[in-house]
């Protein structure tokens, strides 16, 4: 439809408000309570406009655009009312702009500047209550609040959390957590971004820098695979803060606690500023020239003596596409395909299943995929925690009518807010999915026209025979009815989706669960997109795509004979006939000794290597074992690209200078190659970009679905000696282990905890909040026990983020068919 605003004819869609239509057409109408993501509120009254033929002034945020409407947004009448409304807002507003962090980017201040009157008609006492700064990260200053309610609404309507409320009525109304208690929330901090005044403040930024003295730049979040855009502010050479910017990036400006508060991780831990070489058993500072020559000579020696396949490398999802690409190029130039990364414990597993089940490569998700689906099944995954910007759309979809079924052992927030929570026994996702498939087959609810023609159908049918709803219901603990009900919900839905996460810091499901999910998708006749498994970390997708994997080079081009992957290189798994074990390992931005499962044994394995070269930002546990350590530039210290779980490649920017002599990872590798006398033809980043662009695959291949029967493997069952199942799960404030270096996040999630049910805690005499020793067949860890009503009996939940906690020493390598869970016992210390 067409309407006229200020004499300009513009187009609007049906259902759009005047304000939306105006903003979409670049016409500014001042407002304080409007946000694209929220339901129109109509509270601030600043967006009022004059409409021809209307007696009253109308709030443009709350008036639908109509065909032929003639709207004026800036008449003297309108300006006067705006002026008056702003005057009212300012009567009791404190005059503390000089010490307010928001000053300079405060909407209220800007509007007062534009509409304010030089002289106040009303002189009243200004609000002067102490700010609520009890929370470690977010300060609430009610004095400055104009009660636009954006914080309350973004928290409830968008974040799905509802941690803030409008308390009281009329003039004394304040924004507060329920009952005036300390904030208890996700710490996404969206409330800070949407606040048009200085009422909600990022405490870690408080009094740090005036907004106009900062340089701001957009970059990509270093944490999970969502790849949200962060607007990072720099002051005096240091990152002062990070925030989301409306409409920016894949998440449209919504960011989570990690992206907002966690970026100070780059200042956590002591940075390596010099190359180091092990001399007489001790790491000693060295020059680039010396260290490169030494490393190059050692590498050449190993290649000469043991052959190129004795050299292995580990890449990193924390490093850019450029870094990872150059690492694999370096290795393949040496002649070795022994290259892998932590993705082998997560996304790599999903990607391999994806290839087998659908004949496709490059499994990607869409963050908005849950929206508009009729039914969504989430299998043992806390997607809201692992991928907040993806999870948020699960909440949103549910609010909009999607039937969200969460099958999980734990009553996560996703489970609480789902349409249905199906409580399953931990690690039984495969059995559940097989059970659902079996019901579909038995009841003829599958795609009877196409599924039988898919290769492996008969084998699948046969293999599913044992997964009757009764049997599957028994394994999962849900009972047969629940499984039948899920099957029927999925079958009857017009659009559906299965979602799960898989990552190195989780252990409840492996490749078999992914395959069982893929089988279900193929049975339903759904497109492969109905399976959504987001890559776990910032550049997991990217590093896989640029060839940091033993079986394929860049752009999914398979190699003739796959090299050794993580299980072979690090865990001594069978590595093919006659291939020598890896003698030299090149580790870029990874810390297997602390962050990979079975870490205690890994330390042993790494210590036995002839040569260990590590490049990283801090002296990690792995680096401490190295023969050569190169100082690398970290996130925000170099340009490059990350590819997110959607497969979108996004630019990173160098915001601050790398410390000391550290260099970008790719540069170190290029220099090393030069030092070894070979060289890779890479002079600058541009060369890498060009190479990558040249390789970018063209059209995608069509799907060729295939069924592959999978069986439920219970793994290490609890017994008398180790009576509890250990479930490793992420926590919202962390992604991988790097975020644990953040001081801010440490304030709200400082250490690894072990969550235990009330009954199990009672049996062990644990009252909660006490140190306990957790022992598995592989190792032990000392953790703080928390009694939780969210977790089931018989299982304990720990996060793997904290390297020093020792959690990884408890775990075994799982994921590729091995049973997922570990058995542990808890000892009171």
């Amino acid at each position, binding site marked *: 439809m067409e309407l006229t605003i200020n004499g300009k004819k513009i187009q609007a869609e049906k259902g759009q408000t005047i304000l939306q239509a105006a903003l979409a057409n670049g016409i500014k109408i001042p407002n304080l309570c409007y946000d694209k993501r929220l339901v129109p509120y109509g*509270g601030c009254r600043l967006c009022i406009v004059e409409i021809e033929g209307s007696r009253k002034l109308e709030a443009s945020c709350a008036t639908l655009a109509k065909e032929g409407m003639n709207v004026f947004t800036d008449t003297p009448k309108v300006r006067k*009312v705006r002026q*008056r409304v702003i005057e*009212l807002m300012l009567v009791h507003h404190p005059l503390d702009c000089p010490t307010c962090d928001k000053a300079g980017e405060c909407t209220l201040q800007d509007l007062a500047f534009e509409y304010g009157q030089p002289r106040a008609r009303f002189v009243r006492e200004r609000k002067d209550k102490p700010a609520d700064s009890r929370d470690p990260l977010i300060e609430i200053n009610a004095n400055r609040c104009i009660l636009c309610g954006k914080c309350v609404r973004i928290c409830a309507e968008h974040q799905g959390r509802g941690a803030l409320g409008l308390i009281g009525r*009329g003039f004394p109304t304040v924004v507060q957590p329920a009952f005036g208690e300390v904030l208890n929330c996700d710490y996404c901090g969206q409330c800070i971004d949407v606040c048009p005044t200085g009422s909600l403040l990022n405490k870690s930024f408080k009094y740090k820098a005036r907004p106009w003295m900062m340089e701001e730049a957009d970059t990509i979040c270093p944490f999970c695979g969502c790849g949200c855009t962060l607007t990072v502010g720099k002051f005096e050479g240091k990152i002062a803060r990070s925030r989301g910017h409306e409409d920016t990036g894949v998440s449209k400006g919504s960011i989570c606690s990690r992206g907002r508060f966690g970026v100070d991780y780059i200042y956590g831990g002591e940075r390596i500023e010099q190359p180091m070489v092990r001399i007489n058993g001790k790491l000693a500072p060295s020059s680039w020239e010396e260290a490169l020559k030494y490393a190059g000579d050692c590498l050449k020696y190993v290649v000469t003596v043991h052959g190129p396949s004795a050299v292995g490398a580990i890449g990193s999802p924390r490093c850019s596409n450029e870094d990872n690409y150059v690492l694999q190029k370096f290795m393949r130039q040496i002649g070795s395909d022994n290259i892998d990364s932590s993705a082998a414990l997560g996304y790599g597993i999903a990607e391999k299943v994806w290839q087998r089940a659908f004949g496709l490569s490059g499994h990607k998700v869409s963050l908005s995929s849950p929206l508009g689906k009729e039914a969504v099944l989430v299998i043992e995954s806390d997607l809201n925690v692992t991928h907040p910007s993806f999870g948020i759309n699960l909440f949103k979809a549910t609010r909009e009518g999607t039937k969200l079924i969460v099958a999980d052992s734990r009553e996560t927030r996703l489970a609480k807010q789902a349409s249905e929570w199906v409580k399953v026994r931990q690690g039984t996702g495969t059995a559940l999915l097989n059970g659902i498939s079996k019901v579909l087959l038995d009841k003829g609810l599958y795609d009877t026209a196409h599924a039988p023609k898919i290769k492996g159908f008969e084998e699948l049918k046969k293999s599913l025979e044992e997964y009757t709803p009764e049997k599957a219901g028994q394994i999962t603990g849900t009972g047969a009815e629940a499984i039948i009900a899920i099957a029927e919900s999925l079958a009857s839905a017009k659009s559906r989706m299965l979602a799960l996460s898989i990552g190195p810091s989780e252990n409840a499901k492996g490749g078999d669960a992914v395959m069982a999910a893929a089988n279900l998708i193929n049975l339903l006749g759904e497109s492969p997109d109905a399976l959504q498994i987001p890559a776990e970390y910032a550049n997991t997708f990217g590093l896989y795509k640029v060839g940091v994997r033993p079986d394929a080079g860049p752009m999914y081009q398979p190699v003739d004979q796959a090299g050794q992957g993580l299980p072979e290189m690090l865990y001594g798994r069978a590595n093919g006939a006659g291939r020598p074990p890896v003698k030299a390992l090149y580790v870029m931005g990874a810390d297997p000794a602390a962050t990979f499962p079975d870490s205690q044994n890994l330390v042993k394995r790494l210590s036995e290597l002839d040569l260990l070269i590590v490049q990283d930002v801090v002296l990690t546990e792995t680096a401490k074992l190295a023969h050569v350590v190169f100082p690398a530039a970290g996130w925000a210290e170099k340009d490059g690209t990350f590819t997110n779980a959607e497969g979108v490649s996004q630019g990173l920017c160098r915001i601050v200078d790398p410390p000391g002599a550290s260099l970008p990872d790719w540069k170190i590798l290029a220099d090393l190659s030069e030092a070894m006398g070979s060289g890779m033809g890479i002079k600058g980043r541009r060369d890498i970009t060009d190479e990558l662009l040249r390789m970018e695959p063209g059209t995608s291949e069509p799907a060729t679905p295939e069924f592959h029967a999978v069986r439920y493997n219970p793994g290490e069952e609890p017994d008398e000696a180790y009576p509890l199942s250990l479930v490793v799960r992420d926590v919202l404030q962390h992604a991988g282990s790097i975020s644990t270096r953040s001081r801010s996040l440490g304030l709200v999630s400082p250490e690894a905890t072990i969550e235990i049910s009330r009954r199990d805690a009672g049996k062990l005499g644990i009252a909660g909040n006490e140190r306990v020793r957790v022992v598995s067949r592989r190792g032990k860890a000392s953790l703080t026990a928390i009694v939780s009503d969210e977790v089931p009996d018989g299982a304990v939940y720990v996060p793997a983020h904290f390297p020093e906690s020792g959690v990884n020493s408890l775990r075994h390598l799982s994921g590729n068919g091995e049973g997922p869970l570990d058995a542990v016992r808890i000892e009171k210390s």
Partner: protein
Amino acid sequence: MTRSRLTVMMCAGTGCIASGSMKVKHALEEEIKKQGLEDEVKVVMSGCNGYCSEGPIVEVYPGGVFYQKVTVEEVPKLVEEHFLKGRPYEKLMFKEPLKKAPLPEIMSIPFFKHQVVRVLRNRGLIDPEKIEDYIARDGYQALAKALTSMTPGDVVKVVSDSGLRGRGGAGFPTGKKWELGLKIKSDLKFVVCNGDEGDPGAFMDRSVMEADPHAVIEGMIICGVATESHKGYIYVRAEYPLAVKRLQIAIDQCYEAGLLGENILGTGFAFDLDIYQGAGAFVCGEATALMRSIEGKRGMPRPKLWRSAEKGLWDKPTVLNNVETFANIPQIILNGAEWYKSYGTEKSTGTKVFALTGATRDSGLVEVPMDTSLRKIIYDIGGGIKKKGRAFKAVQLGGPSGGCIPEQFLDIPVTYEDIKKAGAIVGSGGMVVMDDTNCMVSTAKFFLEFTTDESCGKCVPCRVGTKLMHDMLADICEARGQEGDIEVLQDLSYDIIDSSLCGLGQSAPNPVLSTIQYFRDEYEKHIRDKWCPTGVCRDLTTFVIDRNFCKGCGACMRACPSKAITGEKKQPHLIHQDACVHCRTCWDTCKFNAIRILPASARTASEEEMERLIVKLFGSRPETAPEPTAAKAAASTAKAPEVTK
């Protein structure tokens, strides 16, 4: 059921219960038993009778004998005289104001004589807790008619033709609302009854819900029939426990009688009804806030991006009407649109219930045709100003959203249009009469205090604007008024009206605007002279005794709470300014009009200065010579006042 000789209708409305009707009922039953009359005389609890100022009220049928202010002590005599001996008991009867002759029959009492009862037609006649009583008075006949012989369109048409307008305040045509409700198709529609009556001094809806709950329910079911909706909510504030109780009893009875639930009256029509108790926020009387409240959310109005008829409760099409509106429906359906229109004017048809309170002799619920004049309501029905020697000053209509109408408009009819023209609104029907002891600035402040407190806080103009207005009025009343305040108040009022989100804010300045319009001089005296002529605003007063009038009766001296008055018997008394707390008790007490209220500045004045001021402000004699009754009594003893100087 045996037939009784006499039926005693004991009013059990909230007003009468508050004045002790349950105790009286108990005493009546005991006494009747004692006299062995229990088979002959039946005591029935009725709903609110309306004449609340005279409670507890008892009516005896047949005959319609009306007793007022019945006490436990009088019960034995009443039973003996009337029930046993058949002689109506005069002592408890209403006395004709001038001749003091007892009027036994209810319909001869002025308060009732001038009323036309439609919504209140069952008052005092039925036991609201008995569905049989309601049915005996043609109850649920209209529903049967609507269900069996009318289409939804027919029902809507009758309601439209009747000209009935929303009785909640805004006066939106009910038929139009229903028409839209019928037109919009949805799998789920709601009918909501707004019983969140919250205006200070208004209790029409409470009484209707208490006295005739079935009329409201029947109206709602008919609305369900007309709009093809099958689910209703009655939103009642939790402060109305009796209304909630009686509505619940009525709903339960309806389910039992097949008037609610599936297959109503065997027609296949289904309708369910629930009560939702509000937590007492005034703003929840606003339709969209009320719906949010039922949804379990914070009761805040939402912008009218969608009409409630399209997206109301839980975003489903919703028809929301006020209690009185629904209570009108059954009679309209039964008697037709023409019958309804036979009263009122073209645009304001039918009758309207008002809650008459304040300075009138009689107060209570009054139902009158909409073309009745204010004067008739206040003087003929209400009996005029109660306090002797006091004059009518203004009538406040429409509660906090309304305005104060002065004497010159008393002859206008109470139609939506005329009242609005005079600067107030019909509103839900609150009618507070004020005599000349009322300060209009304080009155405006009172209403602004109410709206400031009840503003939900969502939109800026209402939240901050009403607070500022209230604070300015408080300043004026506390001697901090400044030249120009009136203009700022007016200016601010128009800003708030122009830019507020909902009706609460858009109408909150009305009490201020109307008092400025009609009583501007009073504002000016407050601001310029620091003088509250009515003596209400303590900081703007000096109370002095006019020696020319003081008879030295000592009444003021005895009444003074701070012992600020001294004087010899029969000698003019003196108020000691340093001890005076400006409570106005002396002024209220004095029968000789001898207390003068001067500006605050007179407190430190010498006696001569005060004299001069009195002469300047009042002349040497009072401007109106009151005829206090006590004056005559005192006249014999009082000589012409002498100035002892």
